[in-house]
Structures are given as structure tokens and as C-alpha cells.
């Protein structure tokens, strides 16, 4: 199984008054990695829309393992699970670059809807092909 990685640095405005990264920001960091994945497989939000779909998140969770502090260089990595249903499940890890420590682990689930809001229960056409290409990259 492979990951797609990206990096960032914890900014001053991302920590709380205890000097620890505020928990909500981890989801924004996950998003950096998700975009990197989606870009690679022509599934960015605008590309999704061009195909006639959106992919809203219906579930998101995060386990916080170690504190991220101001100016910590971090790596965010993501992969997509093999789908059992017409949904996209991304899993994420955030690592501290200096010592490789795992700071957080998370997951989001996205369902697929047509632009009129109708949820689809089966993938088809170009969307199916692109999703399958993306999944097979992570699970060669």
C-alpha cells in the first residue's frame, strides 16, 4: 500500500493558548494531502463538478497522538481505501519531520452526489474509471 505525501509547517495562528496545535486544524492539514491525491488523478473538486458530481464528506474522525507545536515541520500523508460501496474513504497520517513521530491519524468518508443532490449508489463511466485508477495506485 502506498501513500501520497505533502508537507507544511505549523503556523503561529494554528496553535491555541497552550502552544499546541488546535485540534480542528488537523482536518485542514488532511485536506492538503487529499488535494494532492485528487490532483494526481484528475479528481479535484472542479474536475468532479465537470463530470457532473460532488463528493461531500459524511464522516470525519481524527485520533490525536502527540502535540504539534508552533513551527513544527510536518508531513501529511494520505491514501484511499479499496471501496466496498460507492464512496471514497481517505485515511491520513500526520508525522513530525524531525523525529518521524506520529502526531495524528484520521479518516474521512465521502459519498457521491449528482449536481442536483441525488446520491448515487453505483459508480459508472469516467468517474468510475478515474476512481479505479486512483485506488489501484494505492493498492498495486
Amino acid at each position: 500500500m502506498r501513500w501520497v505525501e505533502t508537507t507544511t509547517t505549523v503556523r503561529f495562528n494554528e496553535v491555541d493558548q497552550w502552544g499546541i496545535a488546535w485540534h480542528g486544524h488537523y482536518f485542514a492539514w488532511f485536506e492538503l494531502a487529499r488535494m494532492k491525491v485528487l490532483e494526481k488523478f484528475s479528481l479535484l473538486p472542479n474536475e468532479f463538478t465537470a463530470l457532473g458530481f460532488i463528493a461531500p464528506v459524511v464522516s470525519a474522525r481524527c485520533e490525536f497522538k502527540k502535540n504539534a507545536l508552533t513551527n513544527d515541520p510536518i508531513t501529511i500523508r494520505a491514501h484511499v481505501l479499496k471501496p466496498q460501496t460507492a464512496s471514497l474513504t481517505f485515511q491520513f497520517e500526520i508525522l513530525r519531520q524531525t523525529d518521524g513521530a506520529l502526531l495524528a491519524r484520521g479518516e474521512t468518508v465521502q459519498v457521491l452526489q449528482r449536481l442536483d443532490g441525488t446520491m448515487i449508489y453505483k459508480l459508472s463511466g469516467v468517474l468510475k474509471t478515474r476512481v479505479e485508477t486512483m485506488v489501484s495506485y494505492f493498492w498495486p
Partner: protein
Amino acid sequence: MNNALKLQILLREPIDITPIGAKRVISCGKKGESPLQTPEQSRTEFIAGLKELIIRVLRLEDIEPQDIIDSDPLFGDGLGLDSIDALELVVAIEKEYAVEIPDAEVGRHAFASMNALADFIVEKETTKKTSDALG
């Protein structure tokens, strides 16, 4: 009894399209039961099977088949299923009954209640068998 056979029972006029062997088996019901089963009994059994499938697939540990009311909606107020449940259920129904529910528009009818779901599956199966028979 497998589900294909259960469906046969529910078909109104299966004479021309039902394998002969299957017809004999289906009228027997469970071992030791009367071989004569009314359509109502067959339907009740079919719905009971559907309920067991839903409970198993969605891991509804606190719910017994008899807790699910045949006329209650599966989503929202009734059984309270959500969109991820719908996706799992669709996959299970396709696997078990070879019936597709492509999107929520179709799902709105199919998942309206247990009765609606049973009707939907039987109707799709009947259409499929008829068109197969017509070749």
C-alpha cells in the same frame, strides 16, 4: 431455501419461465412444514429474510427482525438508517438478489418500507426473468 427460490414463490405466473425442478422444491417450505404454502406465508418469509439481511449487513445489534415494522420507512423516522447504510444495503441486495438500485432516486421508492423493498425486488426479478425468457 435459497433466495432465488423464495422469489419464485412470489411470482404470480411463473409457469413458463420457472425451472421444473425449482417449482417442486419451492412448494415444500422448510423441512417438516406443510408443502402447501400460501402466497401470504411466502411473502412473510421473504420479508423476514430481508430483515435478517439488513440486520446482518448493517450490524444492527440491538434490533430483532420482529422490531422492524413492514410499513415503516427504513431511513429517517423508521429504522433510522443513513446514507452510508444505504450504500452497504445496495451492495448486499445486489449480491443476494441480483437487483440493482443505482441511485437515491430509485432508492427512495425501494427503501420506502420493508413492504416497498420486497415489492421492488420481486418486481425487478420478475421483469428480468420475463425478459430473459423472451430472450
